[in-house]
């Protein structure tokens, strides 16, 4: 705004300020829609071209290991501590209403429905979307992606397809494991410091949790996997201008991936639990 301070001495120029302000908002909204359009086209190409043969199984396997297997420690630790903290919170809140014995069931519900997929999604975004954007961004600015096309290899099939597929396959597995570890975290806290009985805690959990609670979380996980890989690939593919451009692509991938995961989580929650 300070740009206009020196020139607001006459009335005409002063009037321009709100107009410029609206124009800025307008162009921001306009460019946001344009970006949504570009991402949608990229997503369509990625799905159509990436999933049609030829398939690159070697690439797929490599990505499954990199995206899935290597994320296990991060996701496991996150889930453990989240489960533990959740148990403490519910216990503290529950004692006010003499509802302490709800701890096990609410931990299980909270982890499987919400916290398992969301925490895993955000952690994997930080790890994987960033890594994908940095790798593909470097390949873009060093012309390696151009080189692929001159060697009879479509970069969508070779680079994007395997990454998206690997993320969609491995995220539900990761979240399944996170569910177990998260519930275990609650169990450890519940039995060691809150004085719950081992058998009762386990029985409460298994009695209360239904298959739908778990599957809804796994569906979310698959969607999050798609978002993570898509954002990494999209920003990497479109990065330009050397090292700085790659850094920017990495940041954008993580930020947009995280926001989209939280938004998609809300949409999926209202969709999956709407009965």
């Amino acid at each position, binding site marked *: 705004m300070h740009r206009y301070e020196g020139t607001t001495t006459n009335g005409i120029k002063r009037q321009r300020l709100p107009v410029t302000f609206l124009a800025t908002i307008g162009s921001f909204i306009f460019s946001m829609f344009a970006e949504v359009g570009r991402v949608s086209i990229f997503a369509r190409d990625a799905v159509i*071209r990436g999933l049609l043969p030829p398939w690159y199984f070697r690439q797929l396997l490599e990505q499954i290991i990199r995206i899935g297997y290597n994320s296990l420690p991060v996701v496991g630790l996150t889930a453990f501590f989240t489960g533990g903290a959740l148990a403490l919170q519910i216990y503290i809140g529950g004692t006010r209403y003499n509802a302490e014995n709800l701890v096990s069931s609410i931990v299980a519900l909270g982890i499987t429905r919400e916290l398992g997929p969301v925490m895993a999604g955000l952690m994997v975004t930080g790890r994987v979307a960033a890594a994908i954007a940095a790798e593909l961004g470097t*390949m873009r600015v060093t012309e390696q992606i*151009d*080189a692929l096309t*001159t*060697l*009879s*290899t*479509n970069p969508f099939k070779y680079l994007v397809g395997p990454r998206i597929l690997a993320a969609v396959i491995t995220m539900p597995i990761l979240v399944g494991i996170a569910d177990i570890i998260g519930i275990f975290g609650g169990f450890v806290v519940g039995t060691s410091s809150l004085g719950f009985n081992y058998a009762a805690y386990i029985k409460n959990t298994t009695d209360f949790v239904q298959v739908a609670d778990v599957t809804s979380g796994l569906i979310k996980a698959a969607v999050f996997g798609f978002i993570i890989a898509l954002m990494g690939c999209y920003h990497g593919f479109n990065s330009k201008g050397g090292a700085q451009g790659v850094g920017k692509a990495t940041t954008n991938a993580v930020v947009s991936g995280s926001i989209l995961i939280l938004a998609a989580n809300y949409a999926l929650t209202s969709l999956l639990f709407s009965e």
Partner: protein
Amino acid sequence: MPEPHIILENVHKSFGSKHVLKGVNVGVGKGRSLVVIGGSGSGKSVTLKCILGLLHPERGSIRVGGQEVIGLEGSALDQMMGRFGMVFQGAALFDSLSVWRNVAFGLIQGRKMKPSEARAIAIDKLAEVGLGAELADISPAELSGGMRKRVGLARAIAPEPEIIFFDEPTTGLDPIMGDVINNLIVDSVKRLGATTITITHDMASARKIGDDIAMIYKGKIVWCGPADEIDQSNNAYVDQFIHGREEGPIEIEL
């Protein structure tokens, strides 16, 4: 007379407000070798990328073997690209793959060759560009700039494409290795019958490689003719460029 193998007509390409190609007209006959010379930033690399379909010109026509390239999409574009090989100015080696896998990439991915078979060919190609088999298993990151360039060259010629583009293949090489690469380019044109376009700043290599030479200046071809007529071109731009004079019609942007 049949239409040249590759022909560009009135090709325009801009980046934002920057008009880089302003109506390029040039052609290369089948099995012939065109050398493109011109100052830095004059649009040489951009021209090659337009032909390859990596950049999309706003106007004009580019035909390869009679087929229009501009506007090709999907598998038609993939198929067209499969006919080309390209040595990138910055080598563009895949740094996640070993040297031999780089060279064999087009054979394994494009031609579906078995890795063991492709490896043997890759090592032959490395030898052709003066690199020993002991480099085959290391990562491209461990190579010097000139070595990377030569691996890029081996990678481009290994699948024996019908058209090969060389973007400054001898820049950054010592004069002797430069001559080895020049001979290799001449030889691959003869042996494979490939049509080639080579970008170079080096007049010795231009004379050696080129059947024809085209000079580009400010996004247009200012002269094009047989390589042995370049000294009698009577073109002020060409004369200034080949003699490397500061005085002349070429404006130097500092």
